[in-house]
């Protein structure tokens, strides 16, 4: 079988066997959930409920008037006990709605199955996806309704459903493909109809042969949909790398996949789209991989959005060993946590607990110009320069070397024999450049351009 891939990339140890052979367990609703009003890329929501209000499962409790946003919903039926700033897995505190369960777990009245969902008009579909709070479940949590609204002058001709799951340790998409293949295909068909596209591709890394086999069988009767095996390599699941691998098309610098006529969505998002339209169900639960040698019973769990990490870990048997690091997401792109009292958000794909034996604190040495980072950079950038300029805080020079195109996959820092935190320098430079730009706009030195 011919395998598609992109130039560059690395082969970290997958560690997927910890969780990939067990069926997804459903975690019973917790006693309390914390729903942050910001769980997506975009504007923060305003609460629609007040302290003391009774809410039902699936009720919309936060929304915003901004263009790029996603409303949030109650994932339990119960009482709003407080609305205050609460620690958030992405770092700083975020205003959150705290709901205590009444034990009934009742759905809101308007959540009914609609078998005629395919008759909805495109705008109705988008409105519904927005109303149900759908965001991309791959990790970046970009609002789905915005992603499925291409500019009028762009013609979309391929939809890619991303089932690569290249991040080590994570297997939630793998399990989803084995358990819900029908829903993934239905979700893809909804997107294809919505954008009037004649071709759909489901891309899966070749380390998941059962998933490839099962989905190939599922799409046998669908002439427009193809299941493609791609090479197991990190970051194969990154949007730009997947497009490059499958279609040999490169997205111009600073542009979106719309530019080459492609929309990429995660398998989890496809299922959520299907459930939102057919079952009228908002995004209030997701599958996450709880794994790592620090977890007693590593497994995939379906949890309510807003469940605290500590509750999820307790459901998986608790922590074991000398825990040094707990990460939200995978080891390559995940975010280290310092509190376990943070809630699961829409973008949480996993909880990874690592022990002291696995976490090393290393001292960065000088760059030896081995060019390993350049060879492996999937965006064809020159990361070693970010290390050199970063140490001198020369952000403008980093900008000239296209640091803005960095996808922050961490391949450069992973392979660096001198252990230079290259990707961290790139992230820092992006932050500083954005800040300098904001300041220039405030001072009126440059015009605000709407290029993204």
């Amino acid at each position, binding site marked *: 079988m011919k395998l598609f891939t992109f130039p560059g990339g690395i082969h970290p140890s997958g560690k997927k066997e910890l969780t990939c052979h067990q069926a997804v367990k459903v975690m019973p609703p917790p006693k309390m959930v914390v729903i942050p009003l910001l769980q997506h890329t975009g504007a923060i929501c305003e609460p629609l409920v007040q302290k003391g209000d009774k809410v039902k499962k699936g009720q919309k409790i936060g929304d915003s008037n901004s263009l790029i946003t996603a409303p949030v919903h109650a994932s339990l039926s119960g009482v709003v006990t407080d609305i205050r700033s609460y620690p958030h897995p992405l770092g700083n505190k975020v205003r959150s709605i705290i709901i205590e369960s009444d034990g009934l777990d009742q759905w809101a009245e308007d959540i009914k199955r609609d078998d005629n969902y395919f008759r909805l008009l495109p705008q109705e579909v988008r409105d519904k996806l927005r109303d149900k709070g759908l965001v991309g479940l791959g990790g970046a949590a970009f609002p789905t309704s915005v992603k499925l609204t291409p500019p009028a002058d762009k013609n979309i001709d391929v939809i890619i459903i991303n089932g690569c799951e290249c991040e080590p340790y994570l297997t939630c998409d793998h399990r989803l493909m084995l358990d819900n293949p029908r829903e993934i295909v239905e979700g893809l068909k909804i997107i294809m109809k919505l954008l009037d596209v004649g071709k759909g591709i489901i891309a899966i890394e070749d380390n998941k042969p059962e998933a490839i086999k099962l989905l190939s069988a599922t799409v046998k009767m669908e002439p427009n949909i193809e299941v493609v095996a791609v090479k197991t390599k990190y970051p194969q699941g990154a949007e730009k790398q997947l497009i490059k691998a499958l279609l040999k098309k490169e997205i111009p610098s600073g542009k979106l996949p719309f530019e080459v006529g492609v929309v990429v969505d995660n398998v989890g998002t496809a299922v959520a789209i299907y459930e939102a339209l057919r079952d009228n169900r908002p995004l209030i639960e997701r599958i996450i991989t709880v794994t790592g040698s620090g977890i007693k019973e590593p497994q995939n769990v379906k949890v309510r959005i807003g469940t605290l990490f500590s509750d999820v870990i307790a459901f998986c048997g608790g922590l074991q060993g000398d825990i040094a690091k707990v990460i939200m997401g995978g080891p390559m792109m995940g975010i*280290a946590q310092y509190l376990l009292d943070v809630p699961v958000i829409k973008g949480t794909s996993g909880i990874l607990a690592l022990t002291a034996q696995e976490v090393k604190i290393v001292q960065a040495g000088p760059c030896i110009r081995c060019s390993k980072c350049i060879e492996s950079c999937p965006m064809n950038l020159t990361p070693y320069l970010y290390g050199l300029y970063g140490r001198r805080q020369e952000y403008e020079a980093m900008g000239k070397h296209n640091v803005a195109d960095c996808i922050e996959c961490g391949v450069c820092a992973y392979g660096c024999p001198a252990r230079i935190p290259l990707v961290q320098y790139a992230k820092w430079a992006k932050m*500083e450049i954005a800040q300098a730009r904001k300041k220039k706009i405030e001072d009126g030195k440059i015009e605000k351009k709407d290029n993204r």
Partner: protein
Amino acid sequence: MIYALLILGGLGLILGIGLAFAGQKFMVHMDPKQEELLKALPGANCGACGFPGCLGYAEALALGNAEPNKCSVGGYKTTKAIGHILGVDVAEKVAEMAAVFCRGDRESCADKYIYDGISDCRAAIALSGGSKGCIYSCIGLGSCVRACPFDAIEWVPGNPPKINPAKCTGCGLCFKTCPKKVIGLISREHAVCVSCKNLDKGKEVRNVCKVGCIACGACVKICPNKAITLKDNLAVIDYSICTGCGKCVEKCPTKTIIFIKANGK
């Protein structure tokens, strides 16, 4: 031997004449006013005025594109000299110096996690606002220390820095670098300073820091001139009234209000 001397000597002579000629021919004429201004400036080339070094500032001044009071390093003396050259009146400006508004060192304000990244405060804030327990606190990775062109900041890694008033010129490069804005400029005439930026309630401050302002109001009550008020859970001194008597420094239970010895210049 003699040929080598002749050849090298001759070569030197020819090139020397060439250089002398080129020096005359291609000489860049500097505005005499600019030259005079450059002499009046301190020559630290720190860039605090917002221009590329003292030459850049002198050029902008000569062209009339800059205010004469931008040089904080030279202070009022330089401003007066510039005003004299340009023939404009300058208002007297009080000399300023930097002060750190945080005393939370490793003992009094514990870390919430072990930071293992780029050793720079501006990079460290990306991970939940820095590793210190207090989100308003100095991160203590020394970005300001490296930014200071005058070596005026004394610092033990991990802890908030201390400003040496004798060396500080008030250029402000440190607080432009500080991502937490826990350094600021204060007038050299001020003797006291509230060294905390935490706007949380007293109990929450107590949970993370032993030396933070808990907004107890003791300083407000003790101040004989009513110069201190509480704003957003933080004591604020009105320096136009403050006499620097130091009663608040004695009274402050957390030792957040401290004396600043601004001797030196």
